């Protein structure tokens, strides 16, 4: 892999000052938005799949602008581990119903009052968070692997 003319991605991100400065804020906003989309999904357009795609895009932007190592530092966990954790979480959400003596994947709901507000907690929500993590983790894995260079 010698002699390769410097193209996009060869360096640690793009050489655009504006993009590089803006990217972390943009990413943070998009991550926040992705969580919002994830949580409203049950009643409004949104959900784990879409949220995960938004989060993956956010991380791809950060990777293009500031380099892969910046993303890895920000993520803390390896993205494929995030995907694995999401898969385990989704499977666990399905298995919880076994403790209630109902078939696999039967939805369980609880409506506790936290600080005076009724909060809907359910295994489908936990499942959807699992979906979100799998999509985010898997796509970020692919994107980072592609952006990464030997010198990273």
């Amino acid at each position, binding site marked *: *892999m010698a002699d*390769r003319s410097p*193209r*996009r*991605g*060869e360096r640690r991100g793009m050489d655009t000052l504006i993009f590089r400065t803006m990217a972390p804020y943009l990413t943070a906003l998009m991550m926040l938005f992705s969580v919002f*989309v994830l949580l409203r*999904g*049950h*009643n*409004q*357009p*949104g*959900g*784990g*799949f*879409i949220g995960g*795609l*938004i989060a*993956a*895009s956010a991380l*791809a932007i950060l990777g*293009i602008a500031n380099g892969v190592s910046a993303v890895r530092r920000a993520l803390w966990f390896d*993205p*494929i581990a995030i*995907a*694995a954790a*999401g*898969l385990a979480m*989704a*499977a666990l959400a*399905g298995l919880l119903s076994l403790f209630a003596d109902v078939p*696999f*994947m039967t*939805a369980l*709901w609880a409506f506790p009052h936290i600080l005076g507000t009724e909060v*809907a907690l*359910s295994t*489908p*929500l936990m*499942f*959807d968070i*699992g*979906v979100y993590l*799998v*999509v985010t*983790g*898997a*796509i970020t*894995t*692919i*994107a980072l*692997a*592609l*952006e990464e260079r030997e010198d990273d």
Partner: protein
Amino acid sequence: MAANDAPFIFLALIAPFLAAAVAPVLTRAMGHRAALPLALVPTGIFAFFCRALSDVQAGQAVTGGYLWVPSFNVSYSWLIDGLSLTFVLLISGIGALIILYAGGYLKGHAQQGRFFSFILMFMGSMLGVVVSDSFLMLFIYWELTSITSFLLIGFDHAREASRRAAIQALVVTGGGGLALLAGLILVWNITGVSTISLLLEYAPALKASPFFFASLLLILGGAFTKSAQFPFHFWLPNAMEAPTPVSAYLHSATMVKAGVFLLMRLQPAFGDTPAWETILPVFGGATLIAGTVIGLRQTDLKLMLAYTTVASLGLLVMLTGFGTPHALESAVLYLIAHALFKGALFMVAGAIDHEAGTRDVTRLGGLRRAMPVTFAAAMLAALSMGGLPPLLGFLAKEEIYEALAGSNPRALAFMLTAIIGNALMFALAFAVALKPFIGPERALPGPHHEAKPVAPASALPGVASTKGEKDKMQATHIHEAPLLMLAGPVVLALAGLAAGVFSDAFHAAFSSPMASAIAHQARTVTISAIPHLSLPFLLSLVTVALGVIVYLLLDRARDAAAAALESIGWGPDQGFDQAMRGLIRGAHALTTRIQSGRLETYIMVTFIVIATSLLVPMAIFSEWPSPPVWPAEAGFHELVIFAIAVIGLFAVVLAADRLTAIVSLGIQGFSVAVIFMLYGAPDLAFTQFMVETLSVVILALVMTRLDLQPSDHRHGWEMIKDAVIALACGVGFAALLLRAVQMPFNRELTDFFNAWSKVVAHGTNVVNVIIVDFRGTDTLGEIAVVAITGLAILALIRIRVSGTVRPADNDPERSD
């Protein structure tokens, strides 16, 4: 045995597997002395099943079992009649002796625990084979014996010869097992019953079926490979690569008899037909002659015994196929006699090898003084094998000649075969049991265990302590084998003697019930060891005389056999190698042909298949969609978006370089997303936007990452070919979608989801409720695919290709 014995029978059947699990731990703790507690397991099984003797003598079979797969009417059920019980007692009784023997033979071997484990697993499998009533249970245990045999033959896996022999045995017997499975399923289909006990009642229907012959051939394929019948005999002598306890146990006394067992078991169902009474005696007779002649040529004790085992199995198959009650009785007697004397002789051969350091009969001699007990056991076993009174072998041979005596040409031909085979086996028996012991003492390599010092020489149970002391000083002194290794041959040889002397009790307990089970009618075996002047006795005398002559001329006979075999040159053993080489070459040629390693080819094939599967069914069933109608009320903004999508397409096709094409793909994708939005699918549109964005990003990254040329370099006919495939796929999908929406819309699911989404799933976004709740298990599968795809792509990208590795770079021609 009472009916409530079922749990105990089940426990007895799985006990060897349980013992196999603890054997390595036990051996680590106790060394070779673990043989003593481990031998208790088969001893216990032996004692337990002895309780069934009285039932079986009374003509009652012990049956029972559990449902296994009730929906397919498959059970785990056993049938313990005279035939099974004799086998069970042989397997467990000889098994106990073999474990003791292995304790001495492999003393200090680093892998002795593993060996015990394997041989106990084998014992459990073999017990399962002989007690199985259900076809599938029989098949599973049958294959388990092949697998455990593979492990045992390949025990010394560092040597190539062992590995080859192990693979050969597995291929031959495992392949035969598949034929057996096919045969059993065919029988199941013909008769509708899946247990042996019921099958015997359906024998007339089976014999009348047009598929009778096919099922017979398939089952014989299983039995003949397992019992090493010509031309599948070659794996058995090669299996002598295994340690001697294995040879004595699997490859003479038990496993190779599984084929004979199966034939005996099925004799009432398949017997008494021309095919059965032709194929079995002819192949059995050929095996008998081939085995003895090849055996004559050998100089290795174990190989000589192995070929006589092949010959004996041939004799058994011949007798089983002969089918008359007397023939079946003689097969019973010979089978038991053979298990006893051949097991003993193998253990003797192992003891000689262990103490003298060689198994070459031309080098051995004069061991009688050093190993008197071994010599005595060997002589007793050889007398039985040679068929001399008053041993069990004599009874068997008398019965054989009684059965074959007759004046028709068929009987004469097989009698002649039996006489020649028995005479040669007589000679070989004494070549193994007498030659090494008589004559002047020779210089021999000495005991194996002294040549290569092993674990600390602790006080050996079995070896007299004074002798143990002497060994240390005098390294090459040959002495008697340790007690653990003497017990087996002595007990088996004495059993052969006792069975011959107390023939009435023996017949009542074993041979009569077993013969009755095989013949499926009550039989009483009466033959005794007292010589009486009759045709069979005269034939015996002829056999012995011939045998003595061959023994005296053994060296010349060996040369003659060697010359004869060399003139043939080719054998099935080489044939096996040629077939395996051919298979590997063929596989390599096929792989290099269909796995080009070029991504273009794979993708082209994939898309051609997609286009074909879309277009061909519509063409065959004339299910083309009717042409779509131009929407009359389409608004201006909608038309603009359609136009943008079309422009995006042209931009992709006409783009000068690839990066532009990728971005242009995004134009088309975004327009489609907007169309989704306009037609009321916000979730879909949302997802489509994100997917399009990420696709463009990832494709662009792939471009830079994989060092692709920036511009398209295809030209001429290549472009045309790809364009045709692309158009075919596009047209196919469009036609399929059009056709699908032209069908009347079924609102059932829509109504269901709309009605219940809020009520039972607490969600108003039906799409999301479907994804995470109604069809959650689907989603779980899908996200698993997503995660695995991520993992796979990560692995693909991380692979650093060093040098030029081409696909299928394991060319067999090069490794040769």
